[in-house]
């Protein structure tokens, strides 16, 4: 069979995000895959060097559209570490609840993408419907559906509106009530098993060597989770589990995602019960006069896709001197994906890519 050069994306129904993979195929088998990012490169880190600390808050969430919240969190953590800002206790809880909601939303988006990729419209539509319910919660809380700009240094931007706790509980119950439907239709579907089992396997050794984090690692049985390793917000205040699977293939990764979602929901319930009353915001200094001492910091948190890090340097000015995000999709999408795609079938490109949860804007920044 002759070799073909095949472009997967950027204009492609199976592609989530503006990303493309150049495939060299022989028949249905992929000989070589080259990730080709950069369609979404905006030079974020450069732009952030031109804006003052506070002006970067609306910026930073735009890096990752699927889960902007962990981006807000990581930047707030970085700034707090540099400037030594304390956060009230209640704000820690609100942040955790908010981030877990975001994780549920993000995983539902991933589920949509994955199911859609397999041609599984039904489940895809359900997942997107339920994500929309989560977005409604965000809208209620923060005033924006997608970009929330909610976590600030020194706490959160606004307290819970009245009756919001009940709304969270109700929404999560209504989503949770559909878990049997999802299980019946998707997770316990024989054909899902056929399609995903043994596909895109990343062994633990490979994952460790290539810097994998998140589900990629947890699907190989390692309980590596930054929330557990280096707890932030209120993650050390309530007990919770790190779900894992053993096989390291797409099937395991999607199951890890499912279990994580359920664990997140349980965690939200626990956090809601344990949440104290009180202040949620320590006022930051006047934004026009805010300078941060000459220091550097590396902070990390667990986004829905893996370890999200931020290397932040200040030279004592009112702007960051250097910002560099360590995004999970970067390693997953550029190193691991290229390796995992080798010798796979064309039909599985999207399958593997989405099971690794590669989010293109995060790579390009």
């Amino acid at each position: 069979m002759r070799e073909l050069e095949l472009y997967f994306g950027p204009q492609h129904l199976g592609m989530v995000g503006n990303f493309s993979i150049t495939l060299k195929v022989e028949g249905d088998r992929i000989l070589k895959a080259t990730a080709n990012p950069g369609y979404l490169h905006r030079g974020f880190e450069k732009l952030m060097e031109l804006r003052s600390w506070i002006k970067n808050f609306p910026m930073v969430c735009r890096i990752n559209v699927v889960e902007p919240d962990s981006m807000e969190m990581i930047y707030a953590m970085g700034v707090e570490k540099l400037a030594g800002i304390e956060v009230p206790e209640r704000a820690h809880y609100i942040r955790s609840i908010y981030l877990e909601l975001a994780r549920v939303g993000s995983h539902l988006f991933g589920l949509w993408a994955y199911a859609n990729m397999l041609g599984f419209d039904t489940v895809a539509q359900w997942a997107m419907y339920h994500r929309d319910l989560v977005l409604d919660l965000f809208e209620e809380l923060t005033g924006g559906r997608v970009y929330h700009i909610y976590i600030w240094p020194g706490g959160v931007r606004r307290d819970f509106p009245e009756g919001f706790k009940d709304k969270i509980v109700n929404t999560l119950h209504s989503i949770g009530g559909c878990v049997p439907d999802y299980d019946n239709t998707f997770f316990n579907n024989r054909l899902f098993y056929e399609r995903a089992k043994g596909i895109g396997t990343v062994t633990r050794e490979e994952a460790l060597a290539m810097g994998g984090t998140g589900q990629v690692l947890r699907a190989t049985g390692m309980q590596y989770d930054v929330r557990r390793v280096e707890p932030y917000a209120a993650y050390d205040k309530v007990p919770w589990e790190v779900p894992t699977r053993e096989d390291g293939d797409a099937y395991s990764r999607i199951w890890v995602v499912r279990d994580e979602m359920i664990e997140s929901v349980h965690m939200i319930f626990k956090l809601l019960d344990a949440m104290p009353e009180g202040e949620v915001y320590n006022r930051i200094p006047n934004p026009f006069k805010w300078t941060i001492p000459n220091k550097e910091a590396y902070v990390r948190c667990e986004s829905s896709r893996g370890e999200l890090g931020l290397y932040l340097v200040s030279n004592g000015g009112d702007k960051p001197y250097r910002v560099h995000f360590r995004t999970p999709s970067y390693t997953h999408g550029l190193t691991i994906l290229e390796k995992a795609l080798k010798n796979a079938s064309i039909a599985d490109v999207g399958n593997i890519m989405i099971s690794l949860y590669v989010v293109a804007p995060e790579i390009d920044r």
Partner: protein
Amino acid sequence: MKDPLKDKLTSAFDGIQIQPADRNQISITANKESILSVLSLLKSNGYNHLALISCVDWIEEKRFELVYILSAYMEKDKHFTDMEKTNIILKTSIYREKPQFISAIPIFENAEPYEREIHELYGIHFEGHPRLTPLFLEREYKTPPFRKDFDTRKYVSDVFDPIPFVGKKADKR
């Protein structure tokens, strides 16, 4: 950081500076010659997760600072120690004129895209890197865009703003 590792580092390498741990964060500054050996030493001592390779342009001091951020994966499945909490920031300086460095791919496989990115955005050449092809950028820039002397606002007003509108709108303006 555990003291034995500190001793090992200070005894093995000249001119290495280790700042004390501050909230799970240790900064190490090393000579550029010894950086790869420091990396492999750290890797063999458990810091086997390369989180990030970054670069800072200290234009006034005429140097680039390459930053390697390392942390530790767990050794056992459900076992957490303080070691996993620690982030190591390993820094080294290189000259800003014709910047060159050695690739860390032999030690950490995932250094590849990071170095490629730094090559593209800062113009630092990495020896031994298999493909230093453009990663993100489509246009060519005289100065690599992430350097501090690249003024993106000026670039925008020089390159994109003069492009005229087309059709009715062009007549209106």
